[in-house]
C-alpha cells in the first residue's frame, strides 16, 4: 500500500456520515495504522452538507486531506458526491450511494436536482474506479434505512481488498468488531448484517 490512505466521506446531516468515519478511523487504528479524523460539528444534524476526513498511514500529520489527495471517496448522497468530487486524486476509488436527498433550496429556486447520468459522467471524468450502490434500497430491505452507511462500509472493505489498497492486515472481523464497539447493543446484529450485505455487492 501507499504510505497513507486518505478517505473523504461526504453526505447530508442525518445520514450517519460521522458514524461511518468514526468506524473507519477505529478500523485503521486497530489494524495498526496511525489514524486521524477531522470534521466540523455543530450544523450537521440540520440537513446541511457533511464532510469528514479520515487518514490512515505509517505517520499521519495533517488531519485534513488536501484537495487532489483523496484516495478513497465515499459519497452517501448523489448531489454531495458531485459537490466534493473535484477534491479526489485523479483515478481515486469512488463509491457513490444512489440516494437522493432534495435540498430545501430547490423548492424556492429554478434549479433542479442533477440527473444520474450527470453524476456518472462527472465521476467517470475523475476516475475509472467507481461503484454505484443502492445502499438506501438495501437498507430498507434489511428493515432500517439508517444502516445504509454501514452497507457502504461493507462494500468499501471488499473493494479495498480487491484493489490491494491495504497490505492484508484488514480482515472483515476487524470491521465487524469496530461496528460492535461503536453502535448501541440492540443494533449490533443489524449493523453487522448490513456490513456483510455490503460486502456481497460486486
Amino acid at each position, binding site marked *: 500500500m501507499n504510505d497513507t490512505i486518505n478517505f473523504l466521506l461526504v453526505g447530508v446531516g442525518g445520514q450517519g456520515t460521522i458514524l461511518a468515519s468514526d468506524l473507519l478511523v477505529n478500523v485503521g487504528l486497530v489494524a495498526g495504522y496511525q489514524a486521524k479524523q477531522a470534521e466540523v460539528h*455543530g450544523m450537521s444534524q440540520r440537513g446541511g452538507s457533511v464532510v469528514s476526513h479520515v487518514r490512515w498511514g505509517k505517520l499521519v500529520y495533517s488531519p485534513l486531506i488536501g484537495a*487532489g489527495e483523496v484516495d478513497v471517496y465515499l459519497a452517501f448522497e448523489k448531489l454531495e458526491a458531485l459537490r466534493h468530487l473535484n477534491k479526489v486524486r485523479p483515478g481515486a476509488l469512488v463509491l457513490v450511494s444512489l440516494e437522493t436527498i432534495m*435540498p430545501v433550496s430547490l423548492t424556492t429556486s429554478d434549479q*433542479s436536482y442533477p440527473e444520474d447520468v450527470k453524476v456518472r459522467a462527472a465521476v467517470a471524468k475523475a476516475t475509472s474506479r467507481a461503484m454505484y450502490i443502492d445502499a438506501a434500497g438495501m437498507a430498507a430491505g434489511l428493515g432500517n434505512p439508517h444502516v445504509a452507511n454501514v452497507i457502504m462500509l461493507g462494500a468499501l472493505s471488499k473493494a479495498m481488498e480487491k484493489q490491494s489498497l491495504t497490505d492484508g492486515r484488514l480482515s472483515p472481523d476487524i470491521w465487524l468488531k469496530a461496528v460492535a464497539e461503536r453502535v448501541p447493543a440492540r443494533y449490533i446484529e443489524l449493523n453487522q448484517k448490513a456490513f456483510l450485505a455490503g460486502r456481497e455487492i460486486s
Partner: protein
Amino acid sequence: MIKMLSGNEAVARGAWEAGVAVASAYPGTPSTEILENLARYPNVYAEWAPNEKVAVDVAIGAAYAGKRAMAAMKHVGLNVAADSFMYVALTGAEAGLVIISADDPQMHSSQNEQDNRTFAKFARIPCLEPSDSQEAKDMTIAAFGLSERFDTPVLLRLTTRICHSSGAVELGERIDLPAQVKKYPRNQAKYVMVPANALLRHPLVEQRQKAIAEMAETFPYNRIERGGQLLGIITNGVAYQYAREVFPTASILRLGMSWPLPEKMIRQFAASVERLVVVEELDPFIEEAVRLMGIAVEGKSIFPIVGELDPRLVRESAVNAGLLPASAHVPLPDVDTGPLPARPPVLCPGCPHRSTFYILSKLKVPVNGDIGCYGLGLPTLGGNVILTIGCMGAGIGVAHGAAKAGSSEHHVAVVGDSTFFHTGIPALINVVYNRAPVVTVILDNRITGMTGHQENPGTGRTLQGQETFEIEFEPLVRALGVKHVKTVAAFEMDEIEATLKEYIKLDEPSVLITREPCALLPEGRKKWLPLAVIGEKCNGCALCFRVGCPAILKSEELDEHYQRPKALIDAGVCTGCEVCAQICPRDAITFRPVQEPVEG
C-alpha cells in the same frame, strides 16, 4: 491505554488527569464538547454558566479558593469574558487556572474569525497551542503546572481543526490533589483590584512575563526539528501539521507556546537557515513579533490571512512563492460539475421557530436577530426576515438604538431562551428603563439548540444532570417592568400573529414568548406524526415552499391548470408541526388526527 479522542475530549481528559476541581463554560462551537465530556468524569464539578463572563468568574473564584479550575468558551465568548480575563491576569490565583478559547478560523459556525492569541499578549499571560489530540491532553496538564509555577492564568488556544479532529491519545491517571479546601485568601493587596493595589500588581505582571519568556527557551513544547538549511519554518497549532507534511525536508521551529516567545531560540533558528517563513493561520501574530526582533521573515506575503489553512493551500502558496518546485503541485481531477444546488443548514423540520419567522416575514417589520438557530432561517423563509445579526444578546439593544434614532418602523428583536439569559436581560432592562417601543420575541425551545442540546437556566436541569430551579420567562420579564407580556405555544400561528400585530402598534416595550420544545429533543421526537398533501386539492401555489421546511418537496406531478409542481411531504422527515397545514389557502395539507399521536 490508547484511545481515539477528539481535541475537545482530550482537553477534558487532560483537565481531569490534572486534578481540575471546578469547570464552568457557556456552550459554543467548536468548544462545547469540552465541558460535556468533563462533566462525565468522577470528582469534578462542571457547570453551564449563563455566559462566558460568569464562567470565567466562577473559575477564578474556585482558583482563589485553592482548587484547580478552568473555563471554556468559543473565541467570541472571550470577548464577553474579557473584563474578568483582564483582572485575573493581574491578580493570579491560589491554584492553577486555565482559560480555554476555541477559535474558529474559516467561521464554520461563528460570526467572525478573530485570532485570540492577541488576548494573551494583551493580558500578558502565556498562550499554549496544541497541534493534535495527544498534545491537547498533555498541554492542558502543562497549562495547570505553568499557571501555578508563575501565578498566572494560562490561555489554552484551540482551533476548530484541533477541537474536532481525532487522533490516538495515551491516557494517564488523575493526579492526587488534597481534597480539603484551604482557607479563602486574606490577601487584599493581591486580590482587591482597586487602583492602589492594581498599580502595584502591574510591574509584577511585567516581571512575570519576562520570567515566562525566559522559561519558554526550554519549554518542551517549543522545539526545533532540524532539517535542511535552505528553508526554516516557524509554525504553531494545526498549521504545524500542514507544514510538516508539505515541507518534509525543511527545518521547523514548532512553537507550542505562542506567547510570550522564546527570543533566543528564534534568533538561533533564524541564523541557522537561509530563508525564514512563518506558517500560521489568521493573524501574522508570530510573524510580526519575529520581525520586531529585527529578523527578516516572511509569512502573510505567502499564505492567506483570511480563512483556515489546509495542506493544499500551504502547498500551492509555497509553490507560488518559490519555496517548493513546480513539481510539488498536486493536480486536481478534470471535472466540471457546473453550479450545484446549495445545501445550507436550515431550520429543521418541525422547528418551533419556523411559525414565528413566517409571521414576521408577513408583517414586514424590521427584525434584529441573535446568534443561534435563528440564523438558520436566513436561506429560506422569504429571505428578508432578519435584517441584522451581530452577536449574542445584540438584537434587543440594536432594536432599541434604531428606535431611538427615530426609525419610522416598529422594531422587533428575536432572541432564544439561552441567549436571553446570556446577555439579553440587561438589554431588555435598557428597553424598559429608557422607554422604547421595542417588541422582543423570546423563542423558547426549552434547550440550547444550535450547539446540540445543552441545558440552560430555563430547562430545570444542570450539566451534570441535577434537577434545579427552572426560571420562567414571563414572571422574570414582568419583574423587569414589561407590562405587555404573553406566552403562546409556538405552533399557535393565529394567536402569535394577532399578538404581534397588537404589540407593533404599542408605544411601550412588549415581550412575546413562544414556547415549544425543539423537535429534536427526545420529548419532541415522541410527538412526530407526518402530514400529507392531498393531491387533488393542491394547485401548486408554492406558499408552503416559503416556510423553508426540508420535509416539503416539489412533486413531479404538475397542477393541470397552472402547469406548476404540486407540493409533496417527505413522510420520513416530517414531524407534523402543522405550520404548512395552517398556511395552506386550499386546505390541501392534512392536520394531525385529533386523537393522541402514536409513539415512535
